[in-house]
C-alpha cells in the first residue's frame, strides 16, 4: 500500500498520523527537534529556513494552545503565518472544506496545519492539494494528533534515553483521546517493550489490546514500577451519556495522587498533554511536583513542530554536499 505521507523517495511529504511511519522518519523528526531546542535558548530565537513561505493554520475546531505552538514554531522558522478559525468564518456561511482550501491555495500558501473535529479531514485535504503543499494534522476527531504524540515521545527520550528498557503507563480516557493512539503507535514503533493503559472499561476502545498494550483497570497494579506516567485529560466536552459516576468518584479511583505515584519507580516522570483538570485526573501537588515534566512538554512541543515543518518545507531531504 502506498503511504500517502511519504513521497516516491520515501521522504516525509505530509504528517497525518504516526501509524505506519517508519522508525527512520520518527528518529529523523526527533533528532532534528534536538537542534531546535537550542534555537529557543538563544537571544535570537529564529532561523531562516522557511523565509518567504506561508503557513496556514486552518482550525475547524478551536484549540488555542495547539494553534499558538504551531504559530510560534512557524514564526521561529521565519515563515509568515495566517490563522483561520474556520468554525467562526466561512464554513458557518456554507462554504465547503475544499473551497476554503482552494482559496488558500490561490493565495499561495505553502503549508497547511489542519485541525478538524471529523476524523480523516486532514487526510482528505492532503489528497486534494497540489504537490508542493504539505499538510500537518493538528488533531482530527478521535483519530490522531501526531505532533502531540511526537512531543510526548521526545520528552520521554530526553528524560529516559534508553527507550528499549522502559515501562510506560497511559492513564485515563483512552477512548476519546487521539493523543493516546498517536502515542501508542510512536512508542511501540520506537521499541518501548511495555506500554500499559489504565482506565475504566467505559473509557477504553473495544479493540485496545490490538494496539499492543497491556490493559489494567486498577491504578495500584498498573502503576507498579513504571518509568513514565502519562495522564490523559478527562474529555468532559466529548462525554455523551453517563460513562462515569462523577468527577469526584473518578479522581478517587483514577486520579493521580502523590500516594499512587509512589508505586511507580522513584525516578518516574509524570506527563500530561494539557489542558489539565486539576482534582479530576491529577492532583495539584503531583502536577506541580518535582517529578512533573508537564511544562517541559510544552517547550519541547515547539521544537518538535519546528522539526516537522523544517523537514516538510525543504527539498527532498537528501544528504547535502559541498563544504
Amino acid at each position: 500500500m502506498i503511504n500517502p505521507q511519504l513521497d516516491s523517495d520515501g521522504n516525509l511529504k505530509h504528517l497525518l498520523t504516526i501509524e505506519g511511519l517508519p522508525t527512520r522518519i520518527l528518529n529523523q523528526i526527533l533528532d532534528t527537534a534536538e537542534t531546535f531546542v537550542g534555537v529557543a535558548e538563544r537571544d535570537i530565537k529564529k532561523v531562516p529556513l522557511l523565509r518567504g513561505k506561508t503557513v496556514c493554520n486552518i482550525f475547524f475546531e478551536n484549540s488555542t494552545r495547539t494553534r499558538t505552538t504551531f504559530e510560534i514554531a512557524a514564526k521561529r522558522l521565519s515563515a509568515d503565518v495566517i490563522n483561520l478559525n474556520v468554525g467562526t468564518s466561512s464554513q458557518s456561511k456554507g462554504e465547503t472544506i475544499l473551497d476554503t482550501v482552494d482559496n488558500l491555495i490561490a493565495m499561495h500558501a505553502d503549508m497547511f496545519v489542519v485541525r478538524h473535529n471529523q476524523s480523516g479531514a486532514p487526510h482528505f485535504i492532503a489528497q486534494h492539494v497540489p504537490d508542493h503543499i504539505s499538510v500537518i494534522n493538528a488533531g482530527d476527531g478521535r483519530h490522531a494528533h501526531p505532533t502531540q504524540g511526537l512531543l510526548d515521545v521526545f520528552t520521554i527520550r530526553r528524560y529516559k534515553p534508553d527507550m528499549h528498557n522502559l515501562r510506560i503507563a497511559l492513564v485515563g480516557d483512552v477512548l476519546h483521546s487521539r493523543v493516546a493512539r498517536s502515542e501508542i503507535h510512536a512508542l511501540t514503533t520506537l521499541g518501548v517493550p511495555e506500554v500499559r493503559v489504565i482506565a475504566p472499561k467505559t473509557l477504553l476502545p473495544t479493540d485496545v489490546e490490538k494496539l499492543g498494550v497491556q490493559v489494567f483497570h486498577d491504578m495500584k497494579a498498573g502503576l507498579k514500577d513504571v518509568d513514565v506516567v502519562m495522564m490523559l485529560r478527562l474529555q468532559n466536552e466529548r462525554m455523551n451519556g453517563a460513562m462515569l459516576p462523577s468527577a469526584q468518584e473518578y479522581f478517587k479511583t483514577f486520579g493521580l495522587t502523590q500516594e499512587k505515584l509512589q508505586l511507580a519507580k522513584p525516578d518516574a516522570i509524570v506527563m500530561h498533554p494539557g489542558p489539565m483538570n486539576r482534582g479530576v485526573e491529577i492532583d495539584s501537588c503531583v502536577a506541580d511536583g518535582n517529578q512533573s515534566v508537564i511544562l517541559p512538554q510544552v517547550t519541547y512541543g515547539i521544537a518538535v513542530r519546528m522539526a516537522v515543518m523544517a523537514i516538510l518545507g525543504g527539498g527532498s531531504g537528501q544528504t547535502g554536499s559541498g563544504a
Partner: protein
Amino acid sequence: MQLPNPETLLSDITAKIQAQLNLATNIEHCAFVGIHSGGVWLMQRILNTLKLDTPYGTLDAALYRDDYAQRGLKAESKPSNIPFNVQDKHIILIDDIFYTGRTTRAAMNELFDYGRPASITLAVLINRGGAELPISPNIVGAEILLNHNQSLQLSQDTKGKLHLSLKESATEYIRLEPNND
C-alpha cells in the same frame, strides 16, 4: 594523487593559530568555534595541544544553508552549541575542508544570531579551491586544487587519528570557466 598527512597539517595550523594568539592583546576575548563534524575534531585537538581554557562552541549551520530549498535538511544534522557570549569576541572558526565558501557563510550567519563578534578568523586544514563567494580562509594547512567531481573527506578513527580520503564521482560536472579574452 598523493594526499598530505592530515596530522602534519593539523600541527601546522595549530602553530599558525598559536602565533596569531601571541599577537592578540587580550586572549580572554578569544573563543573557538568548530563546524561539525571535522571542524569540531580539529578544534578539540588544537585546544588540547595549546592547553587553552578559552571558551569554545560547536556549529552545524544546516539551518542557515542556502541549498535547503533543493536538498532539505540532512537527517544527521547536529545541534549547535555556543555556550559563551559571542558579543565582542574574537572568534577562530575552524572547518576541515574549504570549498565553495557556502558553509562558512551559513556558519557566520548563525554566529551573528548569537551576537556581534569583534572578528572572525577562518582556519581550515585544506583549501581545495572552487570558492563561489568572496570568502577565503585566513589560516590554511595546505592548498590542493581539485576538480568538481572529486570530493575530499576527513575522518577520525577510533584512536582519534585523522585520515583524508579522495572520492571521485563518475560524472564530470561542466564548469563555466571565465573568459580570458
